[in-house]
């Protein structure tokens, strides 16, 4: 696979996404809600003398939301990847170029992954700033980033995002309507969210170990789904069966 070729597809998709207001605002809204509104609401409800351990426990649960954001955002972008091309009827000239399936899939996936992770990290940066401002003022310490947060942001969130992108790209290459792609794409994300939410409530496992277990499981799923995406991507079917 030639990565420079995949990058051409990625940068083109960036240009198209930038012009799509629906994608643009969806990408901004969710991280801001999780990074700004939720922590502010939670911290405002805490008494100033709350013990540090309790605050850390609550924060460890909130941290997991960034992995959830990273898995939800691709349903907005990745659902446009092939369906968007179908809508514009641009797949035939695209397939006529000397570009391989792997390069197209990788380029499209990267175009969905990078803005989603960027938005997640911007939301996380806002979240860290708010939490640390509160903790410094009330406790005299900076609570974030801690090990759990670093593992979630550095490992679990990107893997959840890749998993969601792959799932959504597979769906996008098999349906012919953006809404259908988004709806089915949202269903694909549900198991990921379920695992993340359930995991964050398992108090008997230390959160940093839990993050590691989740990351390992997701890494395996990412590899499996990549090969599945390649195996199920059929140019001919996409060209001859779209309506």
């Amino acid at each position, binding site marked *: 696979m030639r990565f420079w070729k995949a990058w*051409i597809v990625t940068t083109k998709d960036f240009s198209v996404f930038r*012009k799509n207001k629906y994608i643009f605002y969806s990408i901004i809204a969710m991280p801001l809600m999780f990074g700004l509104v939720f922590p502010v609401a939670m911290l405002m409800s805490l008494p100033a003398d709350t013990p540090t351990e309790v605050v850390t426990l609550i924060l460890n649960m909130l941290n997991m939301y960034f992995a959830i954001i990273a898995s939800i955002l691709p349903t907005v972008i990745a659902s446009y990847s092939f369906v968007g091309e179908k809508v*514009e009827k641009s*797949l*035939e*000239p695209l397939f*006529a170029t000397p570009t391989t399936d792997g390069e197209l899939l990788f380029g499209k996936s990267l175009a969905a992954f990078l803005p989603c992770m960027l938005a997640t990290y911007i939301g996380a940066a806002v979240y860290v700033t708010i939490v640390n401002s509160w903790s410094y003022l009330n406790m005299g310490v900076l609570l974030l980033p801690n090990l759990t947060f670093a593992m979630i942001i550095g490992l679990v969130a990107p893997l959840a995002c890749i998993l969601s992108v792959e799932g959504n790209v597979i769906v996008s290459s098999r349906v012919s309507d953006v809404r259908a792609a988004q709806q089915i794409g949202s269903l694909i994300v549900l198991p990921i969210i379920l695992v993340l939410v359930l995991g964050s409530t398992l108090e008997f496992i230390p959160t940093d170990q839990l993050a590691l277990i989740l990351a390992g499981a997701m890494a395996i799923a990412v590899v499996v789904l990549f090969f599945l995406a390649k195996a199920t991507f059929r140019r001919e079917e996409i060209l001859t069966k779209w309506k």
Partner: protein
Amino acid sequence: MIETENLTRKFGELTAVENLTLKVDEGEVFGFLGPNAAGKTTTIRMLCCLIAKTSGNARIANLNVDNPQDCLEIRKIVGVLPENVGLYDSLSAYKNLDFYGKLYEVSPQRRQENIKRLLSLLGIWEKRDDLVGTFSKGTKQKIAIARALIHDPKLLFLDEPTANLDPEASKTVRDFILDLKREKRTIFINTHNLDEAERLCDRIGILKTKLLTIGAPGSLERDVQTRKTVVHLQRVDDQIIAAAKKLRVVKDARTVDNKIVLDVDDPERDNPEIIRALIEAGGNIQFVTELRSTLEDVYLKMIRETGAS
């Protein structure tokens, strides 16, 4: 440049293209005529490695359309104008072409030169930074043609290049194709437009799932032709008709207003005898013309015969 042997494509029970055997030489402009669902687009898609064949063989510039590695090479030397232009509406004309230029691995300098040359030739260089979504169908079609040529392909596939265009835009596109013909590019055109095929193509094939006939437009017309002599008279009466029908060289004669239309094998040889006979029968001849078969006659004859069989 293009060689196919018994090329066949089936979609389930439906046969889209059956046993197509064809050879298109380098520098030739070849036209495929046929009704809707005749298999024209399917043929182009097979030849561009966009869809697989069911059986038979096809080679482009000695590369096999079966072989995935050859397919990548074929895509490098082939330019395609699909039936739907498929441009990105939210990008400018320049960015659309630049994107495809990169995918076709054209160097930045050559890309820039080619985009400028093609858009200038098509008269839309001034609109290069406008969003494609704001353009008319004709302008979009021109950009799609420029896209097909962005990498200077040896072989160009044009699927209905003037479909849905107004007469002015159609003429611009046709003139541009003629320019490409002068550059000795190999061009394969699918069209419904008989006049366009006749004007642009060196050879024409009529397809309706199977290849019904193939040849130069002139030779196809001669093949189906029963040459007709049309005699314009001041007045036509039964005596004149009878005199015409009595002639051995006349296969059939009918009247249309003040004209007699006569089926003959060789007008150059037979016309003097016909004219003498009509004058002797009292006919006042104003002038004599010839009615020639057109490509439309060939096309309709072929398609109807297939339909009847």
